[in-house]
């Protein structure tokens, strides 16, 4: 199905540094999908499960979280906590017979790295293949 999914990204301050480069132009130049809406948070460990669910309630077809590598989170355990909350939402989606992969957790290096754009493209492709969300 060819459609432009509504994708919400919650990323920690550190792994989303690339979004600040060149006043945001660098991400666009690197091919970051325009349909991925980025919300930066101080730490992904601060994200609550309800925030992720509200994104789906607000119409997101897919949601993903980008936090620090598990062994080097700036706030020690923040990204691991975020991963558990993402997993809780994945299980809840599964209980509703909705593809759990509509939400994913990525652990990426901090700073300027191509993986940040790669993750967005990957998520965009996954959701495009799944089709519009059921909510």
């Amino acid at each position, binding site marked *: 199905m060819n459609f432009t999914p509504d994708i919400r990204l919650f990323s920690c301050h550190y792994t989303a540094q690339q979004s600040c480069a060149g006043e945001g132009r660098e991400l666009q130049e690197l091919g970051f999908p325009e349909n991925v809406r980025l919300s930066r948070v101080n730490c992904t460990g601060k994200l*609550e*499960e*309800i925030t992720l*669910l*509200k994104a*789906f*309630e607000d119409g997101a077809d897919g949601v993903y979280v980008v936090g620090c590598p598990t062994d080097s989170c700036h706030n020690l355990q923040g990204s691991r906590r975020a991963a558990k909350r993402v997993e809780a939402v994945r299980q*809840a989606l599964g*209980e*509703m*017979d*909705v593809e759990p992969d509509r939400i994913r957790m990525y652990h990426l290096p901090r700073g300027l790295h191509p993986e940040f754009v790669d993750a967005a493209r990957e998520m965009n492709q996954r959701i495009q293949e799944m089709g519009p969300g*059921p*909510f």
Partner: protein
Amino acid sequence: MIVAERKPLAEILEMVKDCKKILVLACRGCVTVCSAGGEREAEILASLVRLGLKKNGCRAEVIEGSLVRQCDKEYIDAIDEWQGQYDAILSTACGVGVNFIANLRPTDNVYPALNTTFFGGSAEQGVWSEQCAGCGNCVLHLTGGLCPVARCAKSLMNGPCGGSVDGHCEINPSVDCVWQMIYDRMGRLDRQQELTVAAPIRDWSTAGHGGPRKLIRGDLTV
């Protein structure tokens, strides 16, 4: 505290599929402490119910509320605050709370969002274990403070049984044999001799086998 966990979402959605206005009602008592039914969990559940109903083609207005506790009459009366805003209450309290709403709100539909599991404590963050069965005839003074009713799979009064192996229960090696723990602890307390006295056949009528229990404190009734 009373420990509980959320029911499977499909079961909850089936309960409320025909409701048009749902009040997800949190309890700020035990189920808040065990992270099953407090305000945070009720907010999450309300969102899941909205998503699940929408996905199933149902339309309902889902609001959230909370009570200090759902096991006291004066707090149940506070449900009047949401009068007219719901046609069903989805309670995230333990079974006591759901019963109290049913007892005191004769025309309100109430549904349980949780499975009430046991009386227990938090062994570590995110882990709860059963410690008490509420049997109404406490024998902890005889067993060094460790409960054979709740923590022995057979509720033996004169344990351990032959299934105790290396301090573990035969039902599951991950379960400690409480009778081994009792003997070890009583030994440390220099009280092991007390365990040579055979416990008599137990009267289980206080444990609910005599029907629903009631406690009346004449000094407190008005």
